[in-house]
């Protein structure tokens, strides 16, 4: 395949390194020195109150947002910049796009292309970005749709699908680029409660297959059962970070304790 990066699956290898990242929107300081390490095949969950900067941090990882200070690297490569002779050079639009190929992203509001069917959504990037033939892309897309349990919905437009089905198509669309890292931004928050399970099941399946994942979520059950680590964010910093079960069962920081008491 054309994947730019073949994941080693070696759990000791660092997949994402976030070092002392700062980001503000105008005067609003949203990230104030965030550091975090995600290893290969690890599922890192980000939890925290609304407005604490979780989405912003996630969006910095694939350079949808530019960071003001600090550095982020994915698979050993700096995100959004080249480092030459001790100086940072902004990456050309082309190289940013190339970097994003290996990083899949799933959004809270699905963001499927409404003018394309489920199948067309999935083959769009493989054909347009990787230059795959339509036939090959369709064959692969059908596998991905089957994996998310939607082989019978290939010809449906997004408006003809339920929220849960749309989100699973969105996951298939991201997987079609064969990413080595998947970012999930509250993938089940916009869903009716009875549809959440199907999406979480697909994510669990992905995790078991060894995908490296960063998941912003309010599903504490998922974080405990599938997550390896949990980072609790509040006010633009990571307040507490550690083994998922430990943080969720015996939070050390009072703010984590207060938050977990509320969401339970």
């Amino acid at each position: 395949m054309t994947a730019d990066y073949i994941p080693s699956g070696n759990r000791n290898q660092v997949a994402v390194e976030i070092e002392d990242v700062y980001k503000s929107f105008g005067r609003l300081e949203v990230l104030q020195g965030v550091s975090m390490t995600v290893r290969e095949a690890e599922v890192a969950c980000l939890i925290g109150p609304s407005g604490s900067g979780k989405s912003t941090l996630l969006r910095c990882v694939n350079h949808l947002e530019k960071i003001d200070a600090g550095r982020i690297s994915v698979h050993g490569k700096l995100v959004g910049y080249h480092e030459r002779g001790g100086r940072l050079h902004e990456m050309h639009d082309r190289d940013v796009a190339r970097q994003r190929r290996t990083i899949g992203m799933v959004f809270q509001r699905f963001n499927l292309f409404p003018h394309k069917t489920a199948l067309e959504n999935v083959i769009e990037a493989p054909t347009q970005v990787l230059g795959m033939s339509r036939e090959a892309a369709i064959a692969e897309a059908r596998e991905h749709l089957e994996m998310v349990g939607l082989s019978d919905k290939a010809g449906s437009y997004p408006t003809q699908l339920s929220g849960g089905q749309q989100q699973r198509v969105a996951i298939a669309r991201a997987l079609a680029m064969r990413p080595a890292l998947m970012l999930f931004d509250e993938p089940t928050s916009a869903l009716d409660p009875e549809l959440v399970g199907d999406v979480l099941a697909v994510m669990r399946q992905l995790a078991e297959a060894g995908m490296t994942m960063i998941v912003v979520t309010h599903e504490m059950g998922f974080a405990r059962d599938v997550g390896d680590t949990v980072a609790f964010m509040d006010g633009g910093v990571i307040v507490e970070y550690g083994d998922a079960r430990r943080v969720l069962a015996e939070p050390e920081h009072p703010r984590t304790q207060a938050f977990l008491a509320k969401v339970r």
Partner: protein
Amino acid sequence: MSENNPAAGADEAPAAAESRPAAIRAVPVRRPGRWISAAVLLVFAAMFVNMLLFNKNFGWDLVRKWLFWHTIVHGVWITLQLTFFAMVIGIVGGVLLAVMRLSTNPVSGSAAWAYTWFFRGTPVLVQLLFWNNIAALVGSDIGFGIPFGPQFFHLDTNSTITRFSAAVLALGLNEAAYMSEIVRAGILSVDEGQTEAAASLGMRRAKITRRIVLPQAMRVIIPPTGNETISMLKTSSLASVIGVVELTDASESAIHLYFKAIPFYVVASLWYLFFTTILSIGQFYIERYYARGSSRNLPPTPFQKLMRTNLSFRRRPAFTAAREVPR
């Protein structure tokens, strides 16, 4: 609309029928105003039809005789060409200007703004006259080469900018200014999440615009573009001022030949009406095409409406035809 899904109602009706209370048969509210206004309109309509039929000055026999006269038909052909080429320039230019306007590059942004400011700020008739006299502005020959440097080849201005091409340029460049606002509104109507989703898949800006944003913007862009095209069909009559023999000018020349004005204005109006009707029908189907995926039920085509009425006459549950043709 309730008629969009008649099948659902029809399915439930028999099951519930037994225990259901009798349907309401209420006396409708009386609306005398409607009857009065209908009567007044009817009288006006009768007067109008009477005038059309029995006023000799319309000269219907002459209208019939001259409707397909070769000069008129040629004028129609020129009008259609003017409309077509001006709209092509208008739409392509409008898309370019809108993309420039929305780009992050401040230079192209202000250039597009200045263009729109100028071309919307001056009357199209003045622009027509201006283009017709372009030779007076740039000299009688146009050279292509390095700006302020050597030039590689030359064109004679007066033979390159014919009256027809002056009219196409004037109408098209003016239209581009209006189209750019329409396209810009369309692009802005597309959710930002679409661009982000495409970017996160590794697509680049130009491709995102072309494959993701513009097709969705079309839903907002098409209806006013249809209006612009219909409007252009009629605005193209201004080209008669600089001596382009299009439909209006052809009718004028016929009037000078036969000293009968009204029949030829009727002829021209019939032709304009015919083509605006055709354009409106085309607009309906193009809108329908770009609405796919945006709503569960597309508006029915006239044919489907007809089919549906037929079926309901026969008291069979109507099918939702709209759902089966989203492609």
